[in-house]
């Protein structure tokens, strides 16, 4: 079942791309030698602790730091007024009419979520810092709070950010509505509904999730007063982005700011964003001229890591008499939390609304989204980011539609799929799917689970009073948001290219620098596979460098399943430039016409004369020796590229879950989970498999276990791993994986991306399986997470009806 790995030494260079080799990252990780941020110690290092609001919404009446300041070992205590810098966190994505209230590093008048920072304490050791933080006396006057995005925009809801006198809010718009956004054609969609033979409705909630990277966020800042250099080691998915943003926030020149991500223990989106903590740590180090370290406690990660999801949605689907989808209408209230996090406005809009066509040919779609401020931590990208919310809605409503017209859910999907000959397919929600073959993954999955056989087994089981169900999820995702020009038109305040540098050393070894920043994805392995394939240089002679603004020219980072598709393509582009230059040198040295040279297996030779050749390594030596290179050519052999993709990539697949539900206890057992994914070409199938497994575990987590819950005051009631059920080994099923390969037509590797596929696909596979199991009871909806209590209540309620 599972893919066997091989040692890299056992693979020929020509076959390295696509081989399931072991990861070169692992030796340091499995021996404890790997260096995460909190592993780094510096002489004279101080520790920072943050004083946070215990209330979800309150007016700050006073902050008394005197008790903390007087304690032994305390070096400094800072409140908002102590830092004379811009000190506001920026928003990296703008929408028309977006409200952008101030997001200060430290609150001084109002706190708007539990965990909002009020002061920082710096002390000689971490215990003293935390003790002193507890000794800061904060007087808060509690205010009414609101945590639900739909409730937040109702009349009378507590307002988080009062509009300024000169702020021109359109009439009727609630002050908590950060934006009102729409996509698609409302008139066309209304017309489709008017003519429909059947309409299907679904109201769902996509609950707030806590990302739960195993390594809490951390920062170590060091300042050199002599040079003005400020060096930051931090838990980052995108050091260059952090450098640029922090440069503005703390007013430090970008070229004097050096951001490095050492080993990073998972991110899932939560380490993309620029938080107050790293900026505060940097400010303390600069002010005190001593190294300062801050490490979040797990409680702090629960209170301050940007949350994911948080949608309340009403969806309607229109069908014709044959069961073809003729329209989709969606209205979503999206929770943004108390302030706009770095990329927050993009997630429930362009990363959500644009995916609502799913795998289907839908002639009319309209989606409206209101983003609401509420008294929970800022909500931003979490694994999948908008796309799981879209896929969850589409696959739930498709399943309900099939049931409503009494059609088999697999056949309903098949009837409505975009056909292979329709690609590239222009959806009604502004994107063009690059390639796909949706029946192929459906058929593979149906065969894998023996769909017909299952239906018989299901019937037999029902007769015995056992309730089995199968849930299908025909998902689509979009990776590598691009090109930059389009991103700019949509509101991105950044380009979404990726940069790399491929440098050959004189001895013929290679160092490849890439602006992505892996944190568990195995980039050092896969990128070396890519370079070995391009250059024909032995895999072990290639070093990969990521995550350091001092070493890598520029970069946008790792998120949105973009690293292989955009970073990998950038590496290919740089490597090909290296070969191009090397070819000129080889032609010169071989006294041959460049047009007569071929490059294969890492060697240039004259076509038809294999004996007359030069290896790329020999060319590298000649390039640096520079005694005999073409006139006018610069010595050296390296190349930089900025790769800006033509389009997103669109991976797809079909996941099927088979569950057994006990209607008396509400317990769910996942009997089988089958994932058939098409993520384009695979650089390392074992790494692809691992990404799929991990993504599914998080998706199953959302379906069955996880959910950030707040009380009416905005207090987090699932505030620890005891109360928030991060899945354990026993909670995740054995996953059966299969794949098809439909190459991406517009990047040089043919890869699509895989980081988020499992998380996007899994929730609705599980929920659809549960509603299928409970069909005899008339249950066709249970809210996530599907706890035994909720399942039991759904059965009870249906039986009463």
């Amino acid at each position: 079942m599972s893919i066997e790995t091989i040692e890299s030494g056992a693979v020929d260079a020509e076959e390295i791309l696509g081989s399931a080799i072991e990861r070169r990252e692992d030796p340091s990780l499995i021996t404890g030698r790997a260096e995460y941020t909190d592993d780094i110690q510096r002489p004279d290092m101080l520790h920072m602790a943050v004083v946070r609001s215990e209330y979800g919404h309150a007016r700050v009446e006073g902050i008394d730091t005197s008790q903390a300041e007087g304690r032994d070992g305390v070096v400094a205590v800072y409140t908002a007024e102590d830092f004379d810098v811009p000190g506001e966190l920026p928003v990296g994505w703008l929408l028309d009419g977006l409200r952008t209230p101030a997001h200060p590093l430290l609150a001084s008048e109002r706190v708007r979520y539990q965990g909002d920072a009020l002061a920082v304490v710096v002390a000689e050791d971490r215990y003293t810092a935390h003790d002193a933080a507890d000794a800061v006396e904060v007087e808060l006057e509690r205010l009414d709070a609101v945590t639900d995005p739909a409730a937040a925009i109702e009349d009378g809801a507590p307002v988080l950010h009062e509009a300024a006198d000169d702020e021109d809010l359109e009439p009727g718009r609630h002050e908590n509505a950060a934006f009102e956004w729409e996509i698609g054609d409302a008139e066309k969609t209304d017309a489709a509904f008017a003519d429909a033979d059947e309409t299907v409705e679904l109201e769902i909630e996509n609950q707030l999730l806590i990302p739960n990277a195993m390594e809490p966020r951390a920062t170590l800042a060091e300042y050199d007063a002599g040079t003005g250099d400020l060096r930051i080691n931090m838990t980052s998915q995108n050091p260059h982005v952090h450098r640029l943003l922090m440069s503005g926030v703390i007013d430090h020149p970008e070229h004097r700011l050096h951001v490095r991500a050492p080993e990073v223990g998972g991110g899932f989106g939560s380490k993309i964003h620029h938080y107050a903590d790293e900026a505060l740590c940097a400010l303390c180090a600069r002010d005190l001229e001593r190294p300062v370290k801050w490490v979040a406690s797990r409680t702090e990660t629960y209170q301050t890591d940007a949350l994911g999801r948080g949608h309340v949605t009403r969806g309607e689907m229109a069908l014709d008499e044959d069961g073809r989808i003729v329209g989709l209408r969606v209205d979503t209230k999206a929770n943004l939390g108390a302030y706009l996090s770095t990329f927050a406005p993009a997630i429930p809009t362009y990363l959500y609304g644009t995916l609502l066509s799913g795998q289907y040919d839908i002639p009319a779609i309209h989606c409206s989204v209101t983003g609401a401020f509420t008294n929970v931590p800022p909500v931003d990208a979490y694994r999948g980011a908008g796309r799981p919310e879209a896929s969850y809605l589409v696959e739930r409503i498709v399943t309900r539609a099939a049931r409503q017209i009494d059609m088999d859910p697999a056949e309903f999907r098949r009837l409505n799929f975009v056909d292979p000959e329709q690609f590239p397919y222009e959806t009604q929600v502004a994107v063009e799917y690059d390639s796909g073959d949706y029946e192929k993954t459906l058929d593979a999955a149906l065969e894998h689970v023996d769909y017909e056989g299952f239906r018989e087994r299901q019937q037999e089981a029902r007769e015995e009073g056992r309730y089995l169900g199968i849930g299908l999820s025909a998902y689509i995702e979009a990776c590598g948001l691009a090109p930059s020009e389009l991103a700019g038109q949509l509101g991105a305040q950044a380009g979404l290219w990726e940069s790399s540098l491929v440098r050959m050393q004189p001895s013929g070894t290679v160092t490849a620098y890439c602006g992505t920043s892996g944190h568990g994805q195995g980039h050092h392995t896969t990128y070396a596979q890519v370079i070995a394939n391009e250059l024909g240089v032995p895999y072990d002679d290639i070093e990969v460098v990521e995550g350091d603004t001092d070493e890598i020219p520029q970069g946008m980072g790792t998120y949105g399943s973009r690293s292989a598709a955009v970073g990998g393509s950038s590496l290919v582009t740089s490597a090909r430039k290296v070969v191009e230059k090397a070819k000129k040198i080889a032609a010169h040295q071989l006294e041959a016409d460049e047009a007569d040279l071929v490059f294969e297996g890492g060697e240039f030779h004259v076509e038809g004369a294999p004996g007359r050749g030069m290896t790329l390594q020999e060319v590298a030596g000649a390039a640096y020796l520079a005694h005999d290179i073409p006139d006018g050519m610069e010595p050296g052999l390296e190349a930089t590229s900025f790769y800006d993709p033509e389009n997103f990539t669109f991976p797809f697949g079909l996941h099927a879950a088979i569950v057994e539900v006990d209607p008396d206890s509400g317990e769910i057992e996942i009997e089988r989970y089958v994932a058939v994914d098409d993520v384009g070409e695979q650089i390392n199938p074992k790494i692809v498999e691992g990404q799929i497994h991990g993504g599914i575990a998080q998706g199953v987590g959302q379906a069955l276990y996880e959910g950030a819950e707040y009380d009416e005051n905005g207090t987090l009631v699932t505030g620890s791993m005891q109360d928030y059920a991060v899945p354990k080994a026993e909670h995740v099923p054995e996953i059966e994986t299969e794949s098809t390969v439909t190459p991406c037509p517009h990047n040089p590797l043919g890869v699509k991306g895989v980081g988020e596929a499992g998380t996007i696909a899994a929730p609705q596979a599980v929920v659809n399986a549960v509603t299928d199991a409970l069909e005899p009871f008339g249950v066709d909806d249970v809210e996530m997470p599907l706890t035994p209590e909720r399942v039991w209540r759904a059965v009870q309620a249906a039986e009463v009806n």
Partner: protein
Amino acid sequence: MAEHDITIEVNGTEEELTVDSRTLLVHALRDELGYTGPNIGCESSLCGACTVHVDGQAVKSCTMLAVQADGASVDTVEGLADGEELHPIQKSFQEEHGLQCGYCTPGMIMTTQQLLEDNPDPSREEIREALEGNICRCTGYQNIVNAVETAADKLNGGARAEGD
């Protein structure tokens, strides 16, 4: 805060240090002695990233005081390999891609070692049950379970490999 002079044998090396009464074992190991293999994920014994062995028993070092380890022998993931020769459990994690970001891995490996000492041939269900105190957010656990099975095979097949 009272200070205590304690002695701990870490991976076979006797270490003397002075700690506060409240210093956690994991902080003593990491910050005082430089054994940064055990990681801190939750400070509440729920995630298991800090798992070490104290006198041969797997313990969450974030919820044990350093003074409680006075006189004890502590094994961390750093002590597992024999020079550059990986322990069969470590090798199995590498072969099976039983890790991604690696943060939980030192704890997973130490828990696995305890499991395989107690039960040299566990079923997949028994492995999943034994790992209930160790959370991994990256892998979905399947390749970890595969790694533990592979490690059991290696340890059972080669009695020489590791007896402890």
